[in-house]
């Protein structure tokens, strides 16, 4: 197999395969929607020459649930619990993104306590999401029965601590519906801050254990170094954001560059790595986890007094009527820039949005698949997909 052709394919991955050497036998392997490690129902068609991937074609849409269309029939107050389920791994982010857009449209000011609380919750959610990512990534590399599952269970054990915190605050461990237009719906309980401190101390201590099993392990390094290199130019062209972008050396983080919530009151140290391979993305995420721990520790005790919601709470489904206008609000989710674009209905105001569009970071991450897979082997395909951290729920909506 010629190496030059792989480079050509890298330049234009949708190049037709007819000009490939017709003597060579290519096997088409469908890493189908049902597969132990496709992070949701994602399908990849791999054209293989032996074990080397010549072309990779991603197919999304297997988890399309029509969320955006559904939201056109739901009132502004009802949208939050539905949109919760997009990026089902970090629901806080979905809720916050949606409500930020609605607050822009309404011109509602979110009180300081609510903004502070939202920041703490977002960072805790980031920790939980990265823990899940680390577990599933190692699972991809090491097998469901074997070393991968050990780290997976350790990560989930720590993640349970964060979910317990959320349960204490909102009543649900997952898909909380704790945000509303103007602020939050649940306020913190007296012992909450102490619970948070205990949990993040444990998480911080255990991160060292993970590193021993993960980033400082030679076998792991062999599987992730030099694999799936995304260079900075390609990343920016594809609209990649989040740890995938920062792993390619681009220093961009919405929390620092365009602060929202209470991020202007706390320092966010953005972690970058220059290599652009799977190991770089893994390191970025682990460091981000530590950084989130630091931010939470700094912020959780100093929650300012005041109301937690700046807009009248929901009493009627149709109470929030927004007249014409459009808004885009975005935040830094664990996967990248999660944005919501909403066009309000016209006339004297409608209770339902006219159009709700969600900008999912995972979709842009999956767009990188045909560019970075060719030239690697089947084992690497799984590793690369895992390192991009796609969540099909938000990619497909």
């Amino acid at each position, binding site marked *: 197999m010629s190496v030059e052709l792989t480079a050509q394919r890298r330049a234009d991955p949708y190049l037709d395969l007819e000009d490939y050497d017709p003597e060579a036998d290519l096997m088409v392997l469908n890493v189908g929607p049902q597969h132990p490690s496709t992070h949701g129902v994602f399908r990849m068609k791999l054209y293989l020459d032996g074990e080397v991937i010549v072309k990779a074609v991603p197919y999304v849409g297997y988890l399309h649930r029509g969320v955006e269309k559904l939201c056109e029939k739901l009132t502004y107050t*009802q949208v939050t619990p*539905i949109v919760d389920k997009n990026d089902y791994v970090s629901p806080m982010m979905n809720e916050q993104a949606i409500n930020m857009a609605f607050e822009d449209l309404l011109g509602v000011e979110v009180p300081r306590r609510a903004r502070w609380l939202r920041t703490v919750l977002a960072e805790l959610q980031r920790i939980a999401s990265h823990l899940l990512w680390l577990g599933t990534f190692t699972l991809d590399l090491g097998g469901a029965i074997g070393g991968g599952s050990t780290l997976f269970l350790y990560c989930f054990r720590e993640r349970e601590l964060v979910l317990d915190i959320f349960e204490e605050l909102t*009543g649900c461990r997952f898909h909380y519906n704790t945000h509303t237009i103007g602020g939050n*719906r649940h306020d913190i309980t007296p012992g909450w801050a102490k619970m948070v401190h205990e949990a993040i101390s444990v998480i911080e201590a255990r991160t060292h254990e993970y590193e021993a*099993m993960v980033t400082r392990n030679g076998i792991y390094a062999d599987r992730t170094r030099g694999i799936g290199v995304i260079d900075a130019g390609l990343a920016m062209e594809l609209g990649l954001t989040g740890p995938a972008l920062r792993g390619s050396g681009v220093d961009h983080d919405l929390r620092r560059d365009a602060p929202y919530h209470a991020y202007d009151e706390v320092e966010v140290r953005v972690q970058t790595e220059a290599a652009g391979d799977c190991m770089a993305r893994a390191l970025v995420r682990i460091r981000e986890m530590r950084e989130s721990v630091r931010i939470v520790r700094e912020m959780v005790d100093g929650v300012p007094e005041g109301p937690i919601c700046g807009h009248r709470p*929901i009493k009627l489904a149709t109470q929030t009527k927004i*007249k014409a*206008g459009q808004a*885009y609000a*975005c935040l830094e989710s664990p996967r990248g820039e999660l944005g919501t674009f909403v066009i309000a209905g016209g006339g004297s105001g409608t209770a339902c949005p006219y159009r709700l569009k969600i900008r999912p970071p995972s979709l842009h991450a999956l767009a990188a698949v045909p560019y970075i897979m060719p030239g690697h082997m089947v084992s690497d395909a799984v590793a690369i997909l895992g390192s991009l951290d796609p969540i099909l729920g938000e990619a497909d909506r």
Partner: protein
Amino acid sequence: MGYVLDSLRSMGVTMRNLFRAPTTVEFPKVKRPRSDRYRASFALLHDEHGEELCIGCLACERICPSAIITVVQAPKRESAVTGKKRGWCADLTLDLNACIYCELCVQVCPTDAIIMVRTPEQPAFEREGLFLSMAKLYENEKLLEPSWGTGTKLLEMQDPKRGAEEAPKKPAPAAVQPTPADASGSTSEGSA
């Protein structure tokens, strides 16, 4: 050879975890405590005089994003306790199969009639078992432990004027000007 040392280090981590107490428990025998605000199922309440609180206002039916609540209103008549005319509910069914546990129905209820319960795991053997009838909802009031959230408490917690007198006057934070290179932040046009 680096592999050997790395493997030994990783194996050390696993060995350490061998001696930690297991995190999992034998579930049906050992149950773990849930928070006060845990949301598992629903109950309809009577007031302290034993009268049904539900006035059939349809607020919960209208707010539910999954449209699982069906309320049949009964004609207005006088209450046996206060003597005043009030609404009644002939039938309220809740399809727990499709519930997304968003707590919005609890929040909008003007009389705190519908609440969530925090006794977890309310399984059934058939789908019909999860379709909560009014009788079952009133039964849950006696059988299951209520969650913290009621309409009044949630509204009070989210009141924009709450705690305003204690909070020192804080100036609105300066609007952050996004730099031209950034394609982020929130931009909005139009008005409410």
